[in-house]
């Protein structure tokens, strides 16, 4: 065979529904026309980067410093890392320095670099479900084993389940809050419980790292604050990207922040320096490192997202769906009216031309994901379709 057996299997097994739906969506869009379709399948925000960022980018390019596009050290520009460290010092009240920041090719790149650096074959990583499917691939890339742990009904962490999943092989827990696909923001209380669980493991001699995928950290609503996990637990690695908060998804820019309380920090940074090199990233894209360094305190309009969340949530409630109201990100994860959500999703697509992703694409059957990072008009346009679907399933309508 032309490709490896392993890859062949991976491709066949892929329940990367997001992409599959994307292709199907293209077909339907061609068939009915773009305007007729409401596509909520992709986490590809329609938002543009802030105007100030676009201006800064033009300015930077118009007065280029010599060497702007050359290689730099593998962890990124020092001044950029210092800017980010300063921002994180403010937010977390923890003494970050440039040395604790490691620039990466987005969050996905950052996670791969961390996992390559940390995992021995057979090491386990706990992942609360439902979850972003790629986490499984990232962990498997390095011979690690994902251990999936159900969250509670409201998608908050179930500390009892996590405790039961810990073994001698547990190296890390990977959490993603605000969460894709549920929009849940893990609350202060559950994070504290997690920290105290892991601290008691440390007392017994087992270091378990908390790896946080913070890709959506600025997209939180209702005036809530993200729990400050750096203040709760020593062994924390936060991975973030500017795909969502600065709408730079295609430019692949993010970073890892390593807790100053990790004693073996130097060792970890050396390992990550090798990992980013040998995995072929080499360094985060130069131009957008400089941009990111200047825009830590900026983000796209959160109020716009909050309005979209409110509008969509109201529509779902009106239609009769069961759904936990999300407090962050731009996803909603309602219960499917019928147990076979795949069937429901297909019907929604064919009858209402509304595209969503089946919950099994996130390890949870019987639910579906709506990505509402689309223009408000699309959400409003989809109302009738959702209402009809609600009628059909909940009130026995046609």
């Amino acid at each position, binding site marked *: 065979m*032309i*490709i*490896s057996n*392993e*890859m062949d299997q*991976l*491709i066949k097994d*892929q329940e*990367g529904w997001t992409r599959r739906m994307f292709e199907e969506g293209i077909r339907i869009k061609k068939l009915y026309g773009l305007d007729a379709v409401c596509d909520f399948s992709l986490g*590809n925000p*329609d938002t*543009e980067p802030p105007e100030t960022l676009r201006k800064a980018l*033009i300015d930077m*390019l118009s007065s*280029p410093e010599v*060497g702007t*596009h*050359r*290689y730099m050290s593998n962890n990124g520009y020092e001044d950029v890392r210092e800017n980010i460290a300063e921002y994180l010092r403010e937010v977390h009240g923890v003494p970050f320095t440039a040395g604790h920041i490691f620039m990466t*090719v987005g969050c*996905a*790149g*950052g996670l*791969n*670099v961390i996992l*390559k*650096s*940390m995992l*021995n074959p057979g*090491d386990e990583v706990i992942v609360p479900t439902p979850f972003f499917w*790629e986490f499984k*691939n*990232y962990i498997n*890339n*390095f011979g690690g084993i994902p251990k999936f742990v159900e969250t509670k009904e409201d998608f908050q962490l179930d500390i009892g389940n996590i405790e039961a999943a810990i073994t001698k092989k547990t190296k890390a827990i990977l959490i993603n809050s605000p969460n894709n696909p549920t929009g849940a923001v893990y609350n202060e209380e559950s994070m504290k419980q997690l920290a105290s669980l892991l601290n008691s493991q440390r007392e017994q001699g087992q*270091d378990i790292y908390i790896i946080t995928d913070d890709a959506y950290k600025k997209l939180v609503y209702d005036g809530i604050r993200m729990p400050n996990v750096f203040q709760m637990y020593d062994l924390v690695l936060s991975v973030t990207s500017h795909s969502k908060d600065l*709408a730079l*998804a*295609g*430019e*692949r820019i993010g970073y890892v922040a390593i807790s100053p309380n*990790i004693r*073996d920090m130097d*060792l*970890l940074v050396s*390992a990550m320096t*090798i*990992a980013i*090199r*040998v*995995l*072929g*990233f*080499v*360094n*985060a*894209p*130069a*131009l*957008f490192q400089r941009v990111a360094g200047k825009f830590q305190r900026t983000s796209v309009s959160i109020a716009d997202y909050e309005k979209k969340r409110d509008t969509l949530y109201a529509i779902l409630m009106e239609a009769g769906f069961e759904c936990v109201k999300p407090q962050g990100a731009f996803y909603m994860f309602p219960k499917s009216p019928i147990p076979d959500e795949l069937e429901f999703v297909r019907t929604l697509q064919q009858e209402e031309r509304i595209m969503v992703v089946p919950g099994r694409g996130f390890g949870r059957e019987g639910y579906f994901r709506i990505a509402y990072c689309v223009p408000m008009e699309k959400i409003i346009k989809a109302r009738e379709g959702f209402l009809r679907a609600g009628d059909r399933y909940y009130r026995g309508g046609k």
Partner: protein
Amino acid sequence: MPISKSISTLMKNSSWIRAMFEEGEKLKKKHGVENIYDFSLGNPITEPPEALKEELIRIASSDAQGMHRYMTNSGYDNVREEIAQYQKEITGLPYTKDHIVMTVGAAGGLNVVFKSILDPGDEVIVPCPFFVEFMFYIGNHNGVIKLVDTKDDFHLDIDKIGAAINKKTKAILINSPHNPTGVVYNEAELQELIDLLHERSKKGQRIYIVADEAYKKIIYNGTKLPNLPGMYEDTVNVTCHSKDLGLAGERIGYIAMSPRMKNVRSLIDATIFANRILGFINAPAIMQRVVSKFQRSSVDIMEYQKKRDAIYDILVDAGFEVVKPAGAFYIFPKSPIPDDIQFVKTMLQHHILTVPGVGFGKSGYFRLAYCVTMDVIEKSRPYFKEVGELLRNGQK
């Protein structure tokens, strides 16, 4: 320990690099940066062409929506279309956008290719000396690297390659123009290699040629790079614009899969998928748009050729034995003493920073990267002479 055993082994094995780097930094502090002649890094000082910088501003100023969003994992359609067109021109083969996958540089591209084709234990032949990262790219995906020595002039030793091929051989990874030797493989030796591979394919074993062409445009005296995909159907070209367009820090390159390859679609799908799950997702958006318009451009190659001539002249003048490179911006002279690490340390004391051959799998040599200013090259002349004389006297 927070880090994995495999990474910790890699760190130990490369500890001498760090030691040397730190020694160099110390000397720069002591004597001043301008008095140290640093030939250790393949980080070209060349700036991107002016027209490219202007194009970047134009793209950034565009009012079009969605310039920075995700696109399909393989890259923008129109970008791949333009690159396919260029590939068509230089190879005469019917490339379409489907044969092109945009990547995070050549390093990203090679990882994607190896993730796509290697099962655990599969072997990849690599002519030696070699760019040592290849070992990691292959190892990352549980492949086994099989190093095969090249001839004295660093050209392919076909007999040795033949002897290294077995049932597990999945690919041969060639890099021409070559890092660290600057050699460019000629059509005749590549044809011999291909004949060898065809013997295997007749028996049902397909072996890829994976060509790392990061330096393909940096080639001198009108030498032409042989048309590999035209010569061999199972060719995968991996390239980047770090060197030819001076965009190393921006991480932009691509994979081109030969349209003549049987079942090429499954390899295309695998590479797109690998691009995603390895965490690259897609090549940086703005740089994709830029490089699509500059396939036919490059930084000034004559400048590099002049530097090659100057450094070659200096080395020969100082009494070193060296093969004159035909491309890239590296030169790989013989160390006058067998212990190349010792020799590199000696040169350090004479203000010259280089990398020992052992870092490329070949002891007894050292590498100079001459992608520095002409001024640095010219000023280094007396120091090379000094070292040369010292050794000749020592040998008396």
